[in-house]
Structure formats: structure tokens, C-alpha cells
């Protein structure tokens, strides 16, 4: 990547998509380090939440569900990482950059829309991924959770989530007029996902009538795939269902960004 090289010879070095995205991500990482509130929410909530959940999960009646304390707790923790480190923090980031006219200014340059959005998302996505790794190691150490039985399901679940949730954050940010408003706008999906996507309580433990609706929520397939991937107890039918739901949400989220994302403040 020779994006920023100065040349004196024939023709200036052209920037590359990767070089531009990296420059934007680098700036965004610096900014994240200076936004204490966002950083605290992104880093500490996902790491602390599982601790508070542990006693509750320990007292659950998991008999017959094929689950263990670890395979309940770890996907939940990963869910929290996605909700707070990725979704919550990115809603604020996109709203802040829009209100400061940063997005508008960037669009006058060489960076393309996708690069601008991806550059802003990368640091949060990296933090989210790092937390997943830390949580996995922690669960293994503290609860003796083994390695995933079907790692490809875990990977697919995470991969789809790391596209879908930044996109959902971008759309959510578009329905607010300020950074504060953006945090409010992020609350409904965060709460619904915590309650309905098996983050706090495994879906298997929810009343029968509610589960079909909950399965359609955007975080549900991620939790299902991660949990199923770890325990290995996911039927082919449920696997396909979760994969289809996950892909559907990715498509919906990307479409919604293209359709509704606002690059400038509303005046």
C-alpha cells in the first residue's frame, strides 16, 4: 500500500481503497481513544455483563436443553460485545461524524462511500472481535468451556454479524439528529435484542408463542449459530434457518444503508 507516498517522477501515486480505508480507520481509532464514554461502554459493558449473568445462568434449569453454563454464557457475552462494542458505539460514531460534517467533507475526496463507512467501523469491529477472543479465553479458563464443535458455524455467525451490525448502526444513526439522540435511537434494538435474541435467556427457555418471533430478530441467528457451533447440538433445519435469517438481515441492513443513510445533518 503506497497510498501516501510522495512521488516526484511521472504521475502521482494513486491511493488504493485499502490505503484510504486504513487512513480513515487510523483516525477513527485515535478518536475512539479520546471519546471516553463511548470507549467505556464499548469495552467494559461486554466484559462485565457476563459476570453479572453468571449466577443467573447457574441457577437456570438447563436439563434437556443440551446446554451448559458455558455454552449459555459465552454466546451471550459475544452478543453483548456486538450490541455494545459494535452497534452502540458505531451509532454514536456515525451520528457524530455526520453532525460534524466529516462525512460530507470526506465524500468530496477520493474515498468512496463504502470506504468511509468501513473506515469508521473498523476500530469498533476490531474491539468487538478482540472481546470475543478475550471472552472465549475467559470462559475456557473459568468455566472449562471447550472449543467449538463446529467452528464454521461460529465463524459464519460472527462474519454476518460484523457486516450486519455496523450497517444497522449506520441506519439507526440516520434516524437521529444528534449524538445524544443517536444513543436513544439505539436503545430499542439493543433492548429487544437483549431480551428476545437469547442473549439473557436462551430461546429454548422462552414461552412457545414468543420464540418464532424472536427467531426473526437480527441478533438471534448470530447467537443461535455461535451457541450451536459451540455445543454442536444444532439440527440441520435450525442451522439453515439461522443462516437464512442471518443473510436476510445482512441484505436488509445493507439495502437500508444505501436507501436511508444520511451523510449530512438535517437542516
Amino acid at each position, binding site marked *: 500500500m503506497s*497510498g*501516501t507516498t*510522495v*512521488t516526484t517522477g511521472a*504521475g*502521482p*501515486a*494513486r*491511493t488504493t481503497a485499502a*490505503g*484510504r480505508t*486504513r*487512513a*480513515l480507520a*487510523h*483516525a477513527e481509532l*485515535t*478518536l475512539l481513544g*479520546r*471519546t471516553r464514554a463511548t470507549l467505556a461502554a464499548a469495552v467494559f459493558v461486554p466484559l462485565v455483563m457476563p459476570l453479572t449473568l453468571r449466577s443467573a445462568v447457574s441457577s437456570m434449569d438447563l436439563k434437556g436443553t443440551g446446554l451448559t453454563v458455558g455454552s449459555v454464557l459465552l454466546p451471550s457475552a459475544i452478543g453483548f460485545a456486538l450490541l455494545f462494542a459494535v452497534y452502540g458505539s458505531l451509532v454514536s460514531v456515525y451520528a*457524530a*461524524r455526520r453532525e*460534524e*460534517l*466529516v*462525512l*460530507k*467533507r*470526506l*465524500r*468530496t*475526496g*477520493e*474515498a468512496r462511500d463504502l470506504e468511509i463507512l468501513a473506515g469508521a467501523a473498523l476500530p469498533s469491529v476490531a474491539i468487538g472481535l478482540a472481546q470475543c477472543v478475550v471472552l472465549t479465553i475467559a470462559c475456557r479458563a473459568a468455566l472449562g468451556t471447550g472449543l467449538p464443535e463446529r467452528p464454521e458455524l461460529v465463524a459464519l455467525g460472527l462474519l454476518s454479524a460484523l457486516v450486519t451490525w455496523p450497517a444497522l448502526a449506520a441506519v439507526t444513526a440516520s434516524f437521529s439528529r444528534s449524538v445524544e439522540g443517536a444513543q436513544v435511537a439505539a436503545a430499542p434494538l439493543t433492548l429487544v435484542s437483549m431480551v428476545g435474541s437469547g442473549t439473557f435467556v436462551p430461546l429454548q427457555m422462552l414461552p412457545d408463542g414468543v420464540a418464532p418471533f424472536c427467531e426473526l430478530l437480527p441478533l438471534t441467528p448470530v447467537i443461535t449459530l455461535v451457541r450451536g457451533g459451540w455445543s454442536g447440538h444444532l439440527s440441520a433445519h435450525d442451522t439453515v434457518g439461522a443462516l437464512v435469517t442471518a443473510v436476510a438481515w445482512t441484505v436488509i441492513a445493507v439495502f437500508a444503508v444505501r436507501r436511508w443513510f444520511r451523510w449530512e445533518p438535517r437542516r
Partner: protein
Amino acid sequence: MNTNQHDDVIEVTGLRRVYGGGGRDFEAVRGVTFSVGRGEIFALLGTNGAGKTSTVELIEGLAPPAGGRVRVLGHDPYTGRAAVRPRIGVMLQEGGFPSELTVAETARMWAGCTSGSRPAGEVLDRVALGHRSGVRVKQLSGGEKRRLDLALALLGDPEVLFLDEPTTGLDVEGRRSTWELVRELRDAGTTVLLTTHYLEEAEELADRLAILHEGRVAALGTPAEVTASQPSHVSFELPDGYLPGDLPPLPGLGVSGHETTGRRIRLRTGELQRTATALLVWAERARVELRGLDVRPASLEEAFLRISRDAAARDGDENAATTTGPAADTRPARTRGTAA
């Protein structure tokens, strides 16, 4: 891909831009045509809402036009953005930098998105911001932010520079040094498209300019050409005991019209020297003093005000059958076409 063989770096033909909303479309740009040659400073003037920024955004390729054609360096700036963007520099009306980054960090971010970027320090020095490189953007003054914006627009040594109100918020000194810098760039071959609402700025800088009014080109040419079509003015206080009718016959002085405010009379003339001479000779002979005598050649400001007033009056004429009073009085001697 065609390279441009001729000298027009920016070509705009019949440009239209429509903002949709709730079934009521607003046409902000209504058939704008002009071109900018290589190494030229071209200014777009206009009142607020005249369509300056809407026009410039189309030329920058931020949005596709609703009609007409734009070419920048021979390319469509919207569909051919990959070819155009590395060769242009843009400074928007308002900054747009993360407030928590330092000046140097902001420059580094932009350098990473700019082909053939110069070292950030060199460009910051050029706008006298080198000593502020460790300062957060939020701590910069309004003028410093404008200069940072300009520095970033210059990072890639652009062939075409777009400056949207570049000196708004600058003090007199900052404004002068920005003008100096823009002239240097022009002399080095950079083409500059500038919008401003400071007429002095256009007069100082622009090789050619267009005055926009309600989305149309109301006047186009060099500052001298645009100004030349406007009348000059002579004003003074009527001597005690004199009425306007006591003056020599005004048409004989080359005066095309006049207005009085209290004792003060303002003569409009296309022949300033003739009018002024005849008036002074008359005063000498009549042994009267013309107190508060003010002889004023046409200025761009006057041209600008008149053009927007005339355009407003014309709009009025289109809507109402009769127009009386001052509006009728200020109707132009000849209507300027939207020259292309």
C-alpha cells in the same frame, strides 16, 4: 476516455438541479451555462439561495444533475469520479473535521485519502498553521479552521480547486493572505472555482465571474465587463433654495435617471466624466457649493445589487401586470442575457 484537448477545464451546459420533497419540487439550479479555462480564477456570486453551492456541488460530482451537462477535465465528475477526484481539491463552506483530532492527525487522515499527497507539514506551513499542528481542531479559531480546510484541499496539488466561501470568518489579514495564496496557485496553473458573497473578494481575485440569481446566470464576464454595463452615480446635497428642476436639464448632462432623498439628489449616468464636469461647471457659474459631493464609478457591488434587484423586478413584472414606483424606476436600460 477523452483527454481534454481544449483549454476549458470546467464546462457547464444547461445545468439543472431539483430538490424533491413531499411532491413539491424545488428547482435550485435552472439552466446554468458557463465554462472555466485552465489557470483561471472564476467566481460564482449570488445572494443566499441563488444556487451557488448547489451548482458547485454538481461540478464537484457530489450529486448527478437533473438536467444539462458537466465536464471537469473532460470527464463527468459524478460517473467519472475515479478519474476526476485525484485531480481536484475541494473546500466546502463549512469544515467537517473531527473536533477531537489534532491538526496534524487530520492532515494525516486526508493525506491517506489523497493521491500524490504532499507532506502535511509543508501544506500546513503554506497556510501558516504549521505551529498549530499539535492542537485539536476544536481549539482552532474559525479562521484557522478555514485555513486547515484550505490546506487539505491543497494536499494533492490539485489541477482544479473548488473554494466555497474560502474567507468567511477570516480577519482582514487572513483574507489577504488567502487571496495571495490563491493568486500564487493560479499563477502556477491551478484552475480555481470560487464562490463568495464578498464582492470585494471577487473583484480582487476573479479573472471572470458569473452572478447567479434564483438558479440562473444573471451576468457573466470579467469584473470590468460586468461592472461596465452598470451606471455610475453622482450625488450631492441640493444647494439651499434650489429644486431639482433648477439644475441644468439632466438628459443634457448624460444623466439617465435620478432620485432624491430629502435634500440629497443622486444622479445615474453612463458617462461619469461628462456628467461630473458639466455639473461642476454649472456650480462654478452659479456660485453654489455642492455639499457632500460624491462621484462614484460603477462597482461590482452596485452591479450585483442592481442585477438582483432587476431580476426581482422582472419576476414581479412577469407576475403582475403593472409595476410602479421605485421598482419601475430601477428597471435596466438593457437586459443582460445569460451569456454563455
